[in-house]
């Protein structure tokens, strides 16, 4: 399916193809778009090419064939590190720098962009408030003195620090316990509604994608098997594989519903 291109797309990927040495075709003609305020989820089982697609966007992996336009600019026309300073990145695990405090972690990209120190300090406190952590308490804490959920909040704050128009998240919530995770998901959606950045989120959890995404890409063996809104995906699965992925959350929902109706 070819993505419908519009002038205000923050991100537009077309025909992305990536071979790894050894003949592995990790991404095969992948296309996707994301507009401001939109959240796109990429779902698929492990090894289906989700991370490869995501990292090609900020060139943590050099894309092979295809075109990736960020705010209308070909990502290959920019210096890789300049590109990455404009795109927020939240990775699997938190990826915080263990020798830097929360504030220093958050301040990194603004510092690389040479913001004035006063502006950085104000931005750090603002972001800590945004991810609902008390600045006075967390500013000077080192990562190993925080819980997993708190670290992931710092990681999101760090990704948003330089006000990027696009945020990339790779299994950002996967390592958290269900309660922490639900709280963070809710806060994240509120944050996105407020700041109106575009987001591409990789997850192997279909329930998470159905809950959060505006549109979902289902990937299998490097190919996009369907791109649809959550309700279209549920009501009109285009492939037996999609049905299979939907089975697990559906089954869980039915089991919970059955218990609720029991006397």
């Amino acid at each position, binding site marked *: 399916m070819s993505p419908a291109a519009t002038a205000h797309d923050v991100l537009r990927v077309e025909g992305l193809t990536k071979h790894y040495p050894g003949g592995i075709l990790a991404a095969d003609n992948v296309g996707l778009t994301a507009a401001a305020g939109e959240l796109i989820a990429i779902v698929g089982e492990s090894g289906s090419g989700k991370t490869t697609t995501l990292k090609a966007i900020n060139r943590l992996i050099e894309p092979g064939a295809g075109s990736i336009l960020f705010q209308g600019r070909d990502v290959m026309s920019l210096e890789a590190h300049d*590109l990455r*300073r404009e795109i927020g990145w939240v990775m699997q695990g938190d*990826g915080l720098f263990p020798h830097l405090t929360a504030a220093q972690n958050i301040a990194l990209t603004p510092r690389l962009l040479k913001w004035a120190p006063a502006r950085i300090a104000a931005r750090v406190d603002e972001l800590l408030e945004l991810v609902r952590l008390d600045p006075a308490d967390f500013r000077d804490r080192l990562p190993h003195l925080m819980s997993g959920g708190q670290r992931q909040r710092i990681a999101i704050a760090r990704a948003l620090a330089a006000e990027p128009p696009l945020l990339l998240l790779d299994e950002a919530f996967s390592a958290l316990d269900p309660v922490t995770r639900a709280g963070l998901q809710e806060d994240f959606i509120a944050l996105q509604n407020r700041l109106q950045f575009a987001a591409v989120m990789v997850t192997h959890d279909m329930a998470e994608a159905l809950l959060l995404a505006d549109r979902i890409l289902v990937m299998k063996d490097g190919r996009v098997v369907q791109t649809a809104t959550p309700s279209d995906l549920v009501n009109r699965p285009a492939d037996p594989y999609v049905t299979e992925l939907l089975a697990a959350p559906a089954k869980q929902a039915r089991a919970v519903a059955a218990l609720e109706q029991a006397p």
Partner: protein
Amino acid sequence: MSDQLAEAFTVLPQYLGGHMRLSMAAIACAILISLPLGILAARRQWLAGPALGIAGTLQTIPGLALLALMVPILGGTIGFAPAFVALTLYGILPVLRNTIVGLQGVDPVVREAARGVGMTQSQSLIEVELPLALPTIVAGIRTAVVWVVGAAVLATPVGAASLGNYIFAGLQTRNWTAVLFGCVASALLAILLDQIVRSYEIAARRRNRVMAALSTLAGIVLIGGALLPGWLDTAGQSTVAGDQAEAIGLEGRVVVVGSKPFTEQFILAALFERVLEAEGAIVRRRDGLGSTVAFDALASSGIDVYADYSGTLWANVLNREDNPGRHRIIAETSAALLNDYGILSLGSLGFENAYGFAMSREGADRLGVTSIAGLAGERVTIGADSEFFVRPEWTGTREAYGLQDATPRPMDSTFMYGAVRDGQVDVITAYTTDGRIAAYDLVILDDPRGILPPYDAMILLSPEAAADDAVAAALAPLVNAITPAMMREANRRVDLEGQTPEQAADWLWGEIGG
């Protein structure tokens, strides 16, 4: 005892300064080489393997050998240069290995995060990877500090002043106070430097400016302290031949006096120093040089004067094994040294310090021997310095007197006199001027076939010193001035009475009638 301690303290600035200059220069250079190399190699396995391999191999060479090997490699240069190069090589491995291991140990997730937030490669290295690898790298530097400061005592035999001067001279002159003093001083220095590096690391990790400033200050004070006497030392450095001023005697000229590592040599060096200083020379000492190191240094004018023995030169320099008699050996050796090396022999000091096969009186009586011939076929153990057993004298005596059943026991010459007295070995190859022969009532066995060559002590001048008559003139009163009895007594005073070589040299000078 307290005399020896006071003596030890008077030379402390010189030895400690030399030791610190040497080890700190070597450590600094080792870090300058291995840190960039380690950073390059951490991401390039094709470089990491060979670099660690070479550094590791260098590490397995015994320190003493590595230092001594640097002398011929650097074309016969003695002193600071060979010691510095060898110690630098020694310090490279721990820093290199820990830099590579530390950088490779940084979590790949963290490295990807650095790229993800938009860092360039060098920003990632400086702001993330090096800080995270720092504790490992510092541990490597601390290892290097301890190794290099410890190994720097081995600089003495290649002619660089270090705390090893206490140890090597003390071992030979049985001055255990000096030995202990040298060991403790070098251990304290190692601990001190180690602690400075450690506090620096803690300061860096805690970003504690006060602590960083304090450790920097301590480092500067140490380095400054080490360098200051160095500048003073080199300020007046112009060797004899380079200086053509029309002075009377040796006024203001620098003469470098060398010695090999045993008591008699230390006393003779002290005597040369005294005589040269009386003529106004500024004397520098290079004590405890290895046997071949001393000769090579003289030939290249690294030192200006030392005493060596005709039999040693005959065998080691002229490569002769025959024995045409005492006077011919002196004459032929002198001629060859002048022709082949430009070294001037002033002649014999007047005594011989030969190898003599010695036994305790009791042991000799038990076997009923008075000559080496009596040892034929006996299963005796023979203690000697390690040099002896590779000299032609040993093979010569063994063949001539049928000593095939004797067992060689190489040991430091300091210990052999006590060993034969106590019956731990049956025979030793004593130095005939040693005071302990008489003191321990040892018997020297006759050499009826004249196999053991004569060992007249000769005053030798370097080609540069030989160009200046004043040096020869100053030392001339010592030619043929010392009888064997006088030298034995001087040696005895140091080895058995605990006098310093300087005190013994003063006594000798008095006897000579200076």
